């Protein structure tokens, strides 16, 4: 302590150095808590499901298996929960927020440091997951094509997942409870999933169907006017896997890849009346839109949700008083 020198004020350290110290603080937590391993186990289990499908279904070689891989909507929520649930609320719960916020780091710095660490964990997770799914694709579905498009698929999944991360951070910063943050995010996911499947199954109103594209989730389901692709037959119905398209925020990655492959494709959205026996009423076209617009809209919608929820999280964190 001989360095104590009250006459000389400590010079203000650079913003970046302090930010980096927060990132270090966060990353050590992520690694030590064996988070990576937990997240990866979930990832590999989910990814493995598609590799056992050929055993049950009539599926031949599929050169697009790797680039059309996506962690999937449930995984987005699960990854977001595992990676972000403790990030802010855990700091309140453990009381470590007190020594942290009395260091010369601003709350914005802490917030951005946490966000950055979450981003790193998520990207590393998806890199490993997509590597696994690509190798699996080769083994199960034969030679894979257009692998240079894989980064688009990964970026898309990262964006899709970040909507849920932003929601969890906002819920955690407001409630200061990891459990509540998880319940809120998962509750919202379940409600949205149920709500949109009901609309998708029963509504023949094009506006209502289209409105689902503005909620986080799978959006509307339609068909692309393309002829390439792999056909699977389930109970005598043949589907072209490459042509089926979902227009919501969950499908950004897959749709980006398809847009790169078929830049001029259009998607048509149909109403299928499963109850009617009248063949003319059975399937009706609701609307058609270009794939390019679907991708642009879903990215804009995703970024809007991410921005709004991250802002709420940041604002709540910034304004919080530490009372405990």
């Amino acid at each position: 302590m001989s360095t104590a020198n009250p006459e000389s004020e400590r010079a203000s350290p650079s913003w970046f150095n302090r930010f980096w110290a927060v990132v270090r603080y966060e990353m050590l937590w992520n690694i030590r808590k064996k988070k990576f391993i937990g997240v990866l186990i979930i990832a590999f289990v989910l990814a493995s499901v598609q590799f056992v499908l050929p055993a049950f279904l009539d599926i031949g070689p599929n050169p697009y298996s790797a680039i059309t891989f996506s962690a999937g909507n449930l995984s987005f929520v699960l990854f977001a929960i595992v990676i972000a649930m403790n990030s802010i609320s855990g700091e309140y719960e453990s009381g470590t927020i007190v020594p942290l916020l009395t260091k010369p780091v601003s709350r914005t710095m802490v917030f951005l440091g946490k966000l950055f660490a979450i981003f790193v964990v998520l990207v590393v997770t998806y890199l490993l997951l997509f590597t696994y799914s690509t190798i699996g694709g080769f083994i199960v579905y034969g030679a894979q094509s257009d692998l240079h498009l894989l980064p688009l698929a990964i970026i898309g999944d990262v964006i899709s997942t970040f909507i849920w991360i932003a929601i969890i951070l906002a819920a955690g910063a407001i409630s200061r409870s990891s459990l509540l943050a998880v319940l809120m995010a998962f509750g919202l996911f379940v409600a949205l999933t149920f709500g949109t499947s009901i609309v998708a199954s029963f509504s023949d109103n094009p506006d209502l169907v289209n409105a689902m594209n503005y909620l986080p989730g799978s959006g509307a389901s339609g068909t692309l006017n393309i002829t390439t692709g792999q056909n699977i037959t389930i109970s005598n119905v043949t589907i072209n896997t490459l042509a089926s398209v979902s227009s919501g925020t969950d499908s950004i990655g897959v749709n980006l890849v398809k847009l790169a492959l078929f830049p001029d494709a259009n998607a048509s959205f149909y109403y299928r009346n499963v109850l009617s026996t009248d063949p003319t009423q059975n399937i009706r076209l609701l609307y058609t839109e270009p794939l390019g617009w679907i991708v642009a809209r879903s990215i804009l919608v995703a970024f809007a949700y991410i921005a709004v929820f991250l802002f709420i999280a940041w604002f709540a964190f910034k304004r919080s008083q530490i009372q405990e």
Partner: protein
Amino acid sequence: MDLAIETQDLTKRYGTLTAVNKLNLQVKRNTIHGFLGPNGAGKSTTIKILVGLLKPSEGTARVLGKEVHVDDADARLNIGYMPELPRFPKHLKGAELLDIYGRMYGMTQQERSEQIPKLIDIVGLKGRENDFIGKYSKGMQQRIGIAQALLNSPEVVILDEPSIGLDPVGMVEVRELVKEISKEGMTVFVSSHLLFEVEQVCTHVTIINKGVALVSDTLANVSGMLKGPAMLNVEVAELSDEVVQAIKSLPYVKETSVSGNMLNISLATGDDVRPQVSQQITQAGGVIISMNLKRQSLEDVFIQLISNQKEAKA
């Protein structure tokens, strides 16, 4: 006047409860200032406002001449703070925690490699610095809490009950440490509810109760005020009636009682009269084996101070 900490009409309310009520605090630079009060007096609340964790409901606080705001990162560069019962990330090792906090202070690699082992040694954690904090005992967490408060060689160190949870040796060590850092030019503001602790280290004292400062002065002046009647327990071999009568004749002796060899004397003065009492007993033919002066506890003093305050108001 050069003040390290200054508050003006500082008030903090939690709903209808006023935890801190128009507090005017002045802590001079280079002093060891004790912040004394019973549980719930508002000590921690005041301190949390000073370090920018809480926003005051009314009034202002200044530390090192700068008004305190919540989330003013640069203001904290020259402040060291040890929270009450601090809790640190369990997954970090003691030395790692100090290293990361050091980076937040902008300390260079060299500064950190000099300062951290030194602090670990000073707070008595040598040999345990590479253990996870999750495996530390309560007292060890308290010690790492003291180390992190001194990490940046701050101008002001604010310690919220630093000796809670420490063993007797640890308590003495903390007192010595506080004196030591004060010698190096730091201002120390330390809260406590232990009168003897404050008496042994502080140069200045503020006593707070129910959010109101009752007194704030140098230790000498405050102790003078607080000195109330005391009990003197003397163990006397050959305790005769003469001895008891001799003691009773002293003007400042209020009452006496005898149990076995123990002579319990109730004093009407706050002065230390042990020499006179001892002389009196010896002259009356008694042989003193031990003598024990019991001053009033802080609790008693508070009750007295508070009732004084109420009477003054009435």
